[in-house]
């Protein structure tokens, strides 16, 4: 039995997602509460910058002597210009707080102040029900709907009406296809090949891009975009896989959440698009692991059929030799285009 990773492309599933602050904060929701994508689940204040003052060294005195001159303790709010300590002598040197902030550590003649405080708001990112509270950090939210996982995301999240501009799975998204009527929408394209398209999308103020593939040279720029970008299949000119394309096309103009979380192979975080849908009975939760078996729908991860969807006809007993000359366990796969291909098992993932 060979374990198979599962790539989720599901028309209806129960989707459970954790929303967690990177630092301690306040949870703003309760169990059972209905939330919308823009609702704040938790918030926190945190400081990105710190000020370190070595008062003893600046005054040329010992740490303990400096401590006796300092009047500040952890927790004290300080404003710019506040006198921390004043030395002795004919021309006494004065140490002042350079920026407004809060003292977080003091001792041995040293002072650590946090400054540049900012508020961090964690949004639900999807419509659903709060199932669990993560104390001081966030919540677990459950929804039902269609789910399409991607392979690359630029780390942002947003929601909006999805508009497909891809009349076929490999249709390039170009600046000419974008206009102001698409402001606030999540646009679907087969691929992006040029920087102008990303710039135009930013100018139009879209809420996100859902793409089959993107040129690798555009990744640094994509990471700078303030809207989420999710890539479903990979890099270069790979068409969007047919299973994702069909699902997205049939849900055109629906409200969707585009979570462009970076793919982390260890934590399991993946970029995804969630399309909330009504349901009569709670749909099943997706499986993350299956065993390869005939009849399964699979997606090919590498050439010569990268991104193509097919069905496993049979698993090869033992090792097979591939055109590359390598020998590995494989499966006979009938692709959607009718072709039959022997594919190494390690180059397949189950779609489901």
């Amino acid at each position: 039995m060979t374990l198979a990773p599962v790539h989720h492309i599901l028309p209806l599933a129960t989707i459970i997602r954790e929303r967690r602050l990177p630092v301690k904060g306040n949870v703003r929701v309760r169990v059972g509460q209905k939330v919308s994508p823009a609702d704040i689940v938790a918030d926190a204040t945190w400081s990105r910058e710190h000020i370190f003052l070595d008062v003893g060294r600046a005054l040329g005195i010992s740490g303990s002597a400096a401590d006796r001159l300092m009047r500040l303790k952890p927790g004290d709010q300080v404003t710019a210009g506040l006198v921390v300590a004043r030395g002795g002598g004919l021309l006494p040197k004065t140490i002042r707080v350079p920026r407004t902030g809060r003292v977080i550590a003091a001792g041995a003649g040293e002072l650590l102040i946090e400054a540049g405080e900012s508020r961090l708001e964690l949004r639900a990112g999807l419509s659903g029900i709060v199932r669990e509270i993560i104390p001081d950090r966030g919540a677990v939210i459950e929804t039902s709907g269609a789910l399409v996982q991607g392979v690359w995301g630029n780390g942002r999240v947003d929601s909006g009406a999805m508009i497909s501009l891809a009349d076929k799975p490999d249709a390039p998204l170009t600046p000419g296809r974008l206009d102001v009527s698409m402001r606030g929408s999540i646009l679907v394209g087969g691929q992006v090949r040029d920087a102008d398209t990303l710039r135009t999308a930013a100018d139009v103020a879209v809420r996100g891009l859902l793409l089959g593939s993107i040129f690798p040279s555009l990744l640094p720029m994509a990471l700078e975009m303030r809207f989420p970008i999710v890539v479903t299949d990979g890099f270069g000119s790979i068409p969007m896989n047919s299973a994702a394309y069909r699902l997205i096309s049939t849900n055109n103009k629906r409200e969707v959440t585009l979570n462009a979380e970076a793919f982390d192979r260890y934590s399991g975080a993946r970029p995804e698009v969630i399309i909330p849908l009504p349901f009569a009975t709670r749909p099943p939760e997706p499986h993350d692991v299956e065993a390869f078996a005939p009849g399964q729908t699979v997606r090919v991860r590498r050439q010569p059929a990268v991104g193509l969807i097919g069905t496993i006809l049979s698993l090869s007993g033992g090792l097979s030799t591939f055109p590359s000359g390598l020998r590995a366990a494989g499966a006979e796969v009938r692709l959607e285009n009718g072709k039959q291909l022997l594919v190494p098992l390690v180059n397949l993932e189950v779609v489901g």
Partner: protein
Amino acid sequence: MPASLIEGESVLAVDVGSANTRAVLFDIVEGRYRFVASGIAASTAESPFRDVGGGVRGAVTDLQATTGRALLAADGQLITPSQADGSGVDACVCTLSAGPALKTAIIGLLSEVSLESARRLAETCYMRILDSAGINDPRQADQQIDALMRLQPDAVVIAGGTDGGASRSVQKMLEPAGLSAFLLAPEKRPAVLFAGNQRLQNEVKELLGNVTSAMHYSPNVRPSLDTEDLGPAARELASLYLGVRKRQLRGIDQLESWSRGIMLPTAYSQGRMIRFLSQVYGGTRGAVLGIDIGASAAVIAAGFRSKTTLRVYPQFGLGENLPLLLQHTTLEDILRWSPLDLSTGALRDFMFQKSLYPSSIAATKEDQSLAQAVARQALHLAMQTARRDFPRGALSSQPGRLPFFEPIFASGGALADTATPAEALLLLLDAIQPVGIATIILDRSNLLPFLGAAAEHNSMLPVQVLDSGAFEGLATVVSLTGAASEGTQIARAHLVYENGAEARADIKHGNLELLPLQHGQNARLSIQPRHGIDVGFGAGRAGALTVSGGTLGVVFDGRGRPLRLPQDSGRRRELIKKWLWTVGG
């Protein structure tokens, strides 16, 4: 010594890599330890599995199928000790390289001294150095704190101060690390290794002990200004690495329980074996080299008489870090190794796509050509980087050249993913570009790290397995260096087999030549180079020696060092195809 690893017992060795998990069985056969068989399965450290246990059980199950020996009980636990019915094993050892390289900050005093030692120390393990702070760091302390807060390192490696030397300066250097760790949430605090002035251990403990996830101490890597000793600190760093991994990956605890604590980072274990080999088998002519090129990292272990250099380069790994390779090289420089006419765009797409699926393999000739080209360049860069730290006095044909290595052990996913022994050999020759006469040994089952781990408590096992012929001799390679025109004859070789038969070869500059010599056979090789050409005996000097056979026999590499490929892309591709065909296709 744990009771589980006394001499004479069967040993299961398990290696958990990023892409694959291997299980190998060693047992006593006819009174001596032998490599019995190996099993392999895809690793399961990553999502959606997120537990190394699945891959381990898969590899052991594969091993069971090969040997017919039951090793796992119905509950998935290892049967130990071995039973009267032949099932189970007496002991288990583990090596580990799975998981992302540890985000690491290094701290030292002088950039050319202790900071450099800290860098070399961190490079003995699967670590990516992302911040470096020395006494001449232009950043203010608060800027250093903010940098460390953003980085949230998994590990901090600290060197600095000779024993009994600087103390105040070292303490000042530690303040930003201590304060940033204090500000981080407890679960995000780094593990810290202090390998500096030994007199400061108590102060360091006081300053950092309460704000780290684990505090490690080792003897000073720079006990004096002109002395560097990485050995004991590297051992402690290996322990730090395993501690961090235990927190990051599920299933490590189970492995630790199976192995009763005999677990080492794979690269460290490989380095230990190379050191052992250099001391026991290293001839007067040179040193022993071990390379491993896989998804996690490129590992270079070079054992010299005076010291062993172990370097682990995640930036040259062929898995998720593959796009980072382009920070060290160009697409054109990679593509020069391809025998097929492929575009730089196709190569770039390949590298990014491969980074998404490190365990995937090439199914087409084009994909294989790209994969091999990338592996060559990554290994070449790793060798070029590692050689900077080789001892200055290492024996070489001339200054600036690679030292003489004999033998060269090679392993890793990139070599496992070669279609033929010839492909593997040419990859190694192009990337390493050895000089002199070297036996190339392909370690397909990654035995070397296993032996290094087993040697921890059973000195007989590695010695006997090494003598048993478990390693596949790929070829004896004679590399000729010196200036000559393309196509001119640069040496004549004469091989006399054990049965008295003879074979001769005329070696021309720019060409490869091959004389057959089967695995397990020896022959007497005499070689007469032309004036100015060196085969390892000195320029223009003839010599004779006994050489061992291998899968490809004796290969003469007359392409010169450094290897210069033709500028014309068409001619270059034809030449690469011809070289591959010459050594067996």
